[in-house]
């Protein structure tokens, strides 16, 4: 019978191609290309404004919640109800988003990133009685006795040459990898309590949410949250620290562009002006010298010089999406978002750093304790390990906050306000997906969508060069990186993966003369 592969054609496809030029063991140049055109902004024209949040949730099966919340914030402002969201509605939005953060961060560390550092084959020598680990041991033994490494699936093939953890730590991390599979499921279940479904749930609406709090749903949420908090405190964060101890030189790798941006996330009030809302993780702009400046959404622009677009560059409230795949010189389906004309990184590191510099005592203590353990300060967040550490600490910040929010829900109080669709209006939604700053802009004419623009986190981080030829955040983090063995470029993979790019990703290594050294799937 013919060899059969469960069709990888559509589902295993690089949406992001990173081409890295390596010369004498150093990355000389890097180009990040988005290889998929979506066109959401184009087909939403003419549709009912309230449909926007359902369409935009479908931009992504991984962070639909973030698009949903950003879209209803956008609609809140366009419909004139941004200042009237009831506390129950505000808090339940936070809870839905928080559940998604916890799921996303745990999944990223264990199932996407950990295998770059953890040697799962250590499970083969396990002699204890952890059931999960014994299953992995049996699984590895079956593959070895069949002499078929392909049976090891995602554990194999891998890049060799830099596995440093002790056998005991490798075994513990492998057991936790299995446990984390259950944890991400539990976090998804927790999100569905108020969201209705994952992905693409019906729980959000302009003006609030579609379901109010009850004693039962609060209790169900709390029960699951308790397990997830316990896992975050006692498993996830310690595992990140254990990896960091063995790979502490990774605090010196993947520095990046040195500038970060956060729109802020998790509302603490319903100020009609989004930029003035108090948020658990506040908005702000910061840099590696630990300067913090105020955030102004007017400074956001998107450049298209190297994108396959005929649109003009400019602020997202006034630009269009006009595709042209024949544009010469272009190399990406991503635009190049910039803040005040400069490249900025988005994600957990920016959010945690901005909160730290804004003076949040909890965040300061967490960061100081964690990085102090390595003799480093907050500027060490600008690194491959710093990004993982920030993500883990943020998971705890969010999980702890959710427990308090549950206490603030008031059964019987309203959870949304009535809305009317205006004939014409403009709106803006600013929020943070697990992967970083997310903005939606709408303009309504004749009661329907006239223009809708989304500027998404991975567009910030994975952007191509801009109109001034400045490389994007990931491009900059790679240029100058050392690659010890071109056949096993684990350094490149680790740098890119620490950003948690929301695109399946293929890395191509080439020599300056254009010889391809290899192609490496990294997500």
């Amino acid at each position, binding site marked *: 019978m013919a060899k059969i592969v*469960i*069709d990888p054609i*559509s589902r*295993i496809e690089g949406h992001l191609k990173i081409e890295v030029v390596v010369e004498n063991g150093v990355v000389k140049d890097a180009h990040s290309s988005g290889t998929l055109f979506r066109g959401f902004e184009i087909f939403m024209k003419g549709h009912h404004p309230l449909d926007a949040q359902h369409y935009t949730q479908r931009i992504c*099966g*991984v962070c639909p919640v973030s698009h949903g919340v950003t879209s209803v914030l956008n609609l809140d402002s366009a419909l004139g109800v941004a200042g009237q969201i009831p506390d129950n509605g505000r808090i339940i939005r936070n809870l839905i988003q928080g559940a998604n953060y916890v799921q996303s961060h745990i999944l990223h560390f264990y199932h*996407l990133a950990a295998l770059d550092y953890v040697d799962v084959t250590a499970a083969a020598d396990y002699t204890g009685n952890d059931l999960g680990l014994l299953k992995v041991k049996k699984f590895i033994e079956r593959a070895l006795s069949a002499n078929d490494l392909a049976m090891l*699936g995602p554990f194999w093939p891998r890049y060799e040459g830099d596995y440093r953890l002790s056998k005991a730590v490798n075994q513990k991390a492998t057991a936790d990898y299995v446990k984390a599979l259950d944890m991400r499921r539990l976090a998804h279940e927790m999100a569905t309590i108020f969201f209705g479904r994952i992905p693409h749930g019906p729980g959000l609406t302009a003006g609030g949410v579609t379901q109010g709090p009850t004693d039962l749903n609060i209790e169900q949420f709390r029960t699951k949250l308790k397990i997830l908090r316990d896992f975050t405190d006692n498993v996830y964060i310690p595992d990140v620290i254990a990896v960091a101890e063995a790979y502490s030189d990774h605090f010196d790798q993947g520095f990046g562009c040195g500038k970060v941006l956060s729109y802020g996330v998790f509302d603490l009030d319903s100020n009609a002006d989004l930029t003035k809302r108090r948020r658990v993780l506040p908005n702000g702009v910061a840099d590696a010298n630990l300067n913090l400046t105020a955030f102004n959404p007017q400074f956001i622009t998107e450049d298209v010089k190297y994108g396959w677009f005929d649109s003009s560059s400019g602020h997202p409230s006034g630009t269009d999406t006009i595709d042209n795949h024949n544009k010469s010189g272009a190399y990406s389906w991503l635009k190049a978002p910039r803040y005040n004309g400069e490249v900025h990184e988005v994600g957990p590191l920016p959010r945690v750093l901005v909160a730290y510099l804004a003076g949040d005592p909890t965040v300061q203590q967490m960061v100081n304790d964690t990085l102090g353990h390595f003799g480093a300060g907050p500027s060490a967040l600008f690194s491959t390990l710093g990004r993982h550490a920030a993500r883990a600490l943020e998971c705890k910040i969010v999980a702890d906050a959710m427990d308090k929010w549950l206490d603030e829900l008031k059964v019987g109080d309203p959870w949304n306000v009535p809305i009317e669709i205006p004939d014409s209006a403009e709106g803006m939604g600013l929020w943070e997906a697990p992967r970083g700053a997310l903005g939606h802009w709408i303009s309504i004419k004749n009661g329907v969508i006239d223009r809708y623009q989304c500027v998404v986190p991975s567009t910030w981080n994975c952007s191509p060069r801009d109109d001034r030829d400045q490389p994007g955040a990931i491009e900059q983090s790679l240029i100058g990186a050392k690659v010890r063995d071109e056949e096993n470029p684990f350094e490149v993979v680790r740098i890119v993966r620490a950003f948690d790019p929301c695109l399946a*990703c293929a890395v191509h290594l080439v020599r300056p003369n254009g010889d391809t050294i290899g192609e490496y799937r990294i*997500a």
Partner: protein
Amino acid sequence: MNTESPNSMADQTQPQQNNMDCPPPVLVLGVGNILLSDEAAGIRVIEALQKLPLPEGVEVVDGATRAMELMDIIRGRKKVIIVDAVAAESEPGAVFRFGPGQLAEIKQMSISVHDIGVHEAIFFLRMTDELPEDIVFYGIQPGSLALHEGLTPEVNAAVKKVIDFVLEDLKNLPDS
């Protein structure tokens, strides 16, 4: 992990309000991307089955292009039938029936939540020892993966064949 802990995973994470504790014992799962013409073959089979009277205890699920969630859909079943497009280097519309042991090696196995699918879900369930014993795949060789909806005639004919195969399998269910 402290296995003596009273809060062990087993008794703590049992879902309370959905039917995941005890899903219907027989699952027919179709996966595929309906936007890429013949890639939708598995989904078209599912859509047809959803309109037919089926024996008790059978759940038909449109798995679309879902990834990790497929694990949660598959685990805990007695019998699983999975329908998908397969790249078997045969003529368009060729139909295959095979077991999980015959899934070919994918050398460039990736893990990304954005593009893992059936293969990785099976891998994880095998790793956690939760793969149902009775699992069968129906694979249909696509003729076109062009970016539009609709099947080529060869694959449309193959879909009809697979619907009959699945119905036949469902007639011969062991009494559970």
